[in-house]
């Protein structure tokens, strides 16, 4: 993988730092009128998810990370791997538990997820921003309650638990924002 000089640093560039692929979130050049310039970057470590800051002397080079993102449809879980497929080429790839992480509770067959690959292997799985899932368990609520007074917990068919309004019943399909884990609406609305 090529090296990148500090003047090629920009948001979104993937670098190998401390042996881990990282994504630049913010890059600031600190250049005194007289003297050495520095680049201060904020990075997200793509495996641990940690956000840290690093400073480089301007002109230094850092090894790039072979990281790419690809949209793949979720197929199934075989107990060890979660399998995804490229809908155009039908190529399949399996992501392990570490890569899937907390996203597991949003994975629904057929949904397109963003899979981050490092040296060809999945390191993170990002579900769509909105998913539609079925309520498999919730207390029966009062019909006609639309005030949304705090709601009640509901278990969805992927195992995720979200708060839903009291009028939602078992068997209904609800739309959920996966970034916040919050109920949005009944599906199809």
């Amino acid at each position: 993988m090529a090296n990148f000089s500090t003047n090629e640093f920009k948001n979104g560039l993937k670098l190998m730092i401390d042996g881990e692929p990282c994504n630049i979130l913010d890059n600031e050049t600190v250049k005194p009128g007289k003297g050495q310039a520095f680049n201060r970057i904020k990075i997200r470590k793509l495996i641990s998810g940690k956000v840290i800051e690093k400073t480089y002397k301007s002109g230094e080079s850092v090894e790039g990370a072979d990281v790419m993102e690809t949209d793949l449809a979720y197929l199934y879980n075989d107990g060890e791997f979660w399998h995804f497929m490229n809908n155009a080429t039908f190529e399949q790839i399996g992501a392990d538990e570490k890569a899937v992480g907390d996203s597991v509770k949003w994975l629904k067959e057929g949904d397109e997820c963003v899979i981050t690959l490092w040296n060809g292997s999945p390191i993170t799985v990002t579900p769509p921003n909105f998913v539609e899932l079925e309520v498999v368990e919730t207390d029966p609520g009062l019909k006609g309650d639309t005030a949304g007074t705090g709601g009640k917990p509901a278990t969805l068919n992927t195992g995720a638990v979200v708060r839903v309004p009291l009028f939602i019943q078992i068997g209904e399909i609800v739309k959920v924002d996966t970034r916040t884990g919050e109920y949005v609406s009944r599906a199809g609305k």
Partner: protein
Amino acid sequence: MSWRPSASISNLRARANILAKIRNFFAEKQVLEVDTQAMSAATVSDLHLVSFSTQFNDAGAAHQNGKTLYLQTSPEYAMKRLLASGSGAIYQICKAFRNEESGRHHNPEFTMLEWYRPGFDHFDLMAELSDLMQLILSCEKAESLSYQQAFIKFTGADPLTSSLDDLKQLILTHELSADWAKNETNKDTLLQYIFMELVETNIGKHVPCFIYNFPASQAALAKISVDDSRVAQRFELYYQGMELANGFHELTDASEQLQRFQEDNQLRIKNGLAEKSIDENLIAALQSGLPECAGVALGIDRLVMIAVKAETISDVIAFPVNRA
């Protein structure tokens, strides 16, 4: 829409108002406004400055062998030639050009106010700059710390006596994330890095802050102090997280100036950069006699940023480089 200015019209009005106040400030003190060339046959030798250059198709010159001219990184050399010619106190508001990254505090062309005061030393000029800051920003009088005082206050280490290894240890102790530092061989690079991380972040928050008497190894064009040869009579002004100005009690000794330029070039070669031809006109002016004086350069764009509480330099420049 990138044809429109990135700065609001009200910020541009504030900018014009500040420039008018500055001109009035100097008119009242009978400091002469000058307007020197933006392109010169020679440029700076400073290791860390990158100038723009262009080719001048003088009469009879074939296109490919036109004469190289450099856009000024500051008007310093031309203004010193005027001082040596008996101009007396002078100031200039002009564009300076540096071929470096653009960013929140940087644009490759920016507006500089530079002025020179014969008979002043750096402390006299710091006082005058503080007056100007108060006039423009309605702030309080600036405070002053020597480089050594400030460094000791915020890091616990003496910058003038610490060794390379002491500074590396300091970086580890403060858990600064600079992996390159352990292999660094240039003490000034470590000093500049530590200064940036631990000193600059703590000074000039409420009132402008002068740092004066920089290490002699970072003298640039300043005189070395007669009282302490470890420091140079150079100062910088910091306010609200930005470096606003850099000034010197000016070096007037032609042979010492020539030697510093030659040392710059040695450092350039060591760092794999091309040598820069030395500005013979400046050296000749110094040989003829530069009056004892102090000079300072102030970034106008950053000054306007503070005045209008702007987040980025593009808020105060009509068309920064990405819209140029």
